[in-house]
Structures are given as C-alpha cells and as structure tokens.
C-alpha cells in the first residue's frame, strides 16, 4: 500500500519543518481518514471536524512515529480510531446503539435466521445501487455497536488485513474476525428489518 522508505523520508522531512512534505501527507491520507470518520460518525460535519482533529493530532505526534514498528497507514488509522472512540464516548452514542450484543432480537428467534435473509437470487450488491440504498446502508451501519462497526469499516470499507486491524484495535486477530462476522450479520439483520418495514 505504501512504500515504507518513501513514507519514512516524508515523515522525516515533515519533522524537519518541510511544509510541502506535510501537505503531501495531508493530500494522501485525507480521503481515507475522512471516509473512516464519516462511516463511523455518520455525519459529514462531524467527519470533517474529526478529520481535522486527526491531522492536528498527527502533526503534533509525528515525531513519535517509528516506521520499524508498523506501517504509517496503520499508525494513522490508529490515531483516527482512538479519536473516534473519544468522540463516541463524548457524544454518548452507545446508549442509542442498537447492538447485536445488547439486543438479542428475541422476536426474530421464532424462525431460523437463514429464512430472514433477503432473496439470495438478487444479491444486494448486484448492479448499480441507488443513492437511497447507500444511505440506508450507511444509516444501518451507524446503528450497530461501535466495536463491531469499526472492525467492519476497517475490513470491508478500508480493505485492511486482519493483522493491521488487530494492531489498530489492539485485540487478537481472532477477536477481529469474530467482530467482523458479527458486525456483518447485524448489519444484514438491520437492513432486512428496514426493508421488511418498507415492504
């Protein structure tokens, strides 16, 4: 994903006070960080503010980055994730979260979960999705618990491998995989519930 030596040089120039190097870092990573923040926070305004905070923190702690300990993108994502967790705690979203862990969906246990899945002959990713569908998925994603959400975002939206995600979340790879599975399943259940209400 990134040339370690190039990034290390960029970081060194940045620490030395090279404004162009810092601008290059911002240009390279702002899109990625903004998307993580947007998918996690759910709001474009919050995502913009959080992205700025991430870069401010990055700028202040850049000398602490050690390229021998991990990739720069992992370091950046870790900063982003930590800020998102802080933001989440401040906004108390966890009280409103419709998590799979807390809500056992007892009313849905009456029938096998496999029968609650939408028609497999028409997979949801087939063809061009409308804007409304994307917004529905985005809204459903913001409803799952933050632990599952961050794992799903890093894996399915940022294409990070399990080892990197484990490094960012500071949990074992097995836990990462478990969270991803549960996050995906909960998202599917929420979307199924949504479309059932619409239908």
């Amino acid at each position, binding site marked *: 994903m990134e040339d370690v030596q190039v990034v290390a040089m960029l970081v060194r120039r940045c620490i030395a006070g090279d*404004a162009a190097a*810092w*601008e290059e870092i*911002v*240009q390279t990573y*702002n*899109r990625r960080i*903004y*998307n993580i923040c*947007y*998918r996690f926070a759910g709001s*474009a305004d919050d995502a*913009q503010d959080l*992205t*700025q905070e991430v*870069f*401010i923190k990055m*700028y202040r702690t850049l000398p602490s980055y050690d390229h021998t300990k991990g990739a720069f993108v992992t370091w950046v994502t870790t900063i982003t994730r930590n800020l998102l967790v802080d933001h989440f705690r401040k906004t108390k979203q966890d009280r409103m979260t419709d998590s*799979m*862990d807390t809500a*056992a969906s007892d009313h849905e246990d009456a029938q*096998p*979960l*496999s029968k*609650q*899945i*939408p028609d*497999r002959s028409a*997979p*949801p*990713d087939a063809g061009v*999705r409308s804007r409304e*569908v*994307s917004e529905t*998925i*985005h809204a*459903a*994603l913001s409803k799952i618990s933050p*632990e599952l959400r961050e794992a*799903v975002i890093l894996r*399915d*939206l940022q294409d990070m491998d*399990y080892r990197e995600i484990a490094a960012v979340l500071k949990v074992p790879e*097995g*836990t990462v*995989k*478990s969270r*991803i*599975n*549960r*996050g*995906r*399943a*909960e*998202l*599917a*259940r929420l*979307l*199924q519930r949504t479309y059932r209400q619409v239908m």
Partner: protein
Amino acid sequence: MPDRHISDHTSNGMQCHEFDLMLSDALDGVLSGTQLDRFQAHAQSCKVCGPLLAEAEAGRSWLKGLTEVEPPANLVANILASTMGVDTQRLRATTSQRQPHVSRLEHVRASFLEPVWTMVRQPRFAMSFGMAFFALSVGLTVAGVKPSDIKAIDLRPAAIRRAYYNAHARVVRYVDNARAVYELQAALRGIKRNLAPAEPAPKPKDHKNDTTQQPEQKQERNYSQTGDQLIMARAPLGPSLRDLPVVSVTTYRRFV
C-alpha cells in the same frame, strides 16, 4: 470478548467457536481442502452457525456496495491552516475560498478609486472646484472670517452653545437698540411736523373730465398717502372777518 451467539456445540468434528474463526477466511475464499469441507459440513448441520454464515455473507455484500464519499473541497486547506497556519494561494485558488488581502485592495482600488480619480482629472471638475473655492473664500472674507479665527474655534459642545448664546444676545441687543433709535426718530419727526408751518393747499389739477380713464392711478395716489400726513384746512379770510384771529384746523382724516 466471547460471542454469546457462538456456543461450544460440536458438529461434524468442529466447534462453533472454530467455525466463527474460519468464517471470515471462508468468505474471503482462502479456505480449501479439508478445512473447507469441515466448515461447510458444520454450516449445514449447526442451527446457529448456518444462519450466521448467511447473514455475514449478506452483510458483506451490502457493505461492498458502499462507495467512498468525496471529502469537502476545503478540507485540505482547513487542515493545513489548522496545523501549520498555511494558507497558500494555490490551495485557496483550488477551493475558491476568500480572496487574499492584496487582491481585495486591488478590487477596492479598481472599483472605487479609479473612477473617482478619472473624474477628478477632468478640466471641468477642476474649474468647478476652483470656482467653489473662490466663492467660499470671498464669502468668508466678506463675513470677516479669518483663518486665525477658524483656528481658534473650539468645537466642543459647551463652546458651541456659548457661541450660540453670545450671538443671540448680540442680535437681541441690536434689535433693541434699533427700536429705540426708530422711536426717537419718530418722536423727532412728530415734533418737526408740529413746529413746521402749514403747507399751501395743492392746486386742483385739470382733469379735463376724463378721470374715469385712469382710476387706478388715482386710487394708487390716494393709497400712497400715509395716515400720519397732516392735512391743514384754513378758512378764507373775508372782508368781515379780517379782524378775527386766524383759526387753523388740523385733521388726520385721510382722503379716500
């Protein structure tokens, strides 16, 4: 954190916990051989893991449909401004942010100062300005205003109020004095008239019986006489009355 939906149930030689660990790899397509067979067998036989596989696969498909969102256009500029205080021309040009300070000065000069300067440079404006200055200086000179007086002017409110009252007092004194002078003049005129001899009677004009043709002139003449004008009447001195003292009658009646 243990998953409450994953039990320790064993089916086809695989526990649900093991199935959960392999689920991601299975969806990524990295399972093969014996592992894949055991995984599929467990999914078909386990009432918990089978639906979980279906849900995870569906959720993964939904998420793959989400595309990247475009960051705001001014995000990079805001980040650089908030971190380094960098506010480069290039970034501002790309994000169409507010114009730099120098550009705003240029805009003010082009929109306001240039038209004014163009008008000032015209001879007509110079002539008008010169005439206005000349008229003002003449007016001030006539009014007795000197530049040294202008310098001494105190524009404080109290001083302005005091100047107003002084000017008002001067005007009142001037009017009072003028009234006294007029009254004195009127008294003197009255004394003079009383002491002066009677005027001879005016000779009758030859109107030739055509006064009706100039009624306005006649009327105007009558109205022009003031009420203060004295009209002296004197009785004719006949032979039988020569020895009587002369009696003169003064009347203020106006001719109408």
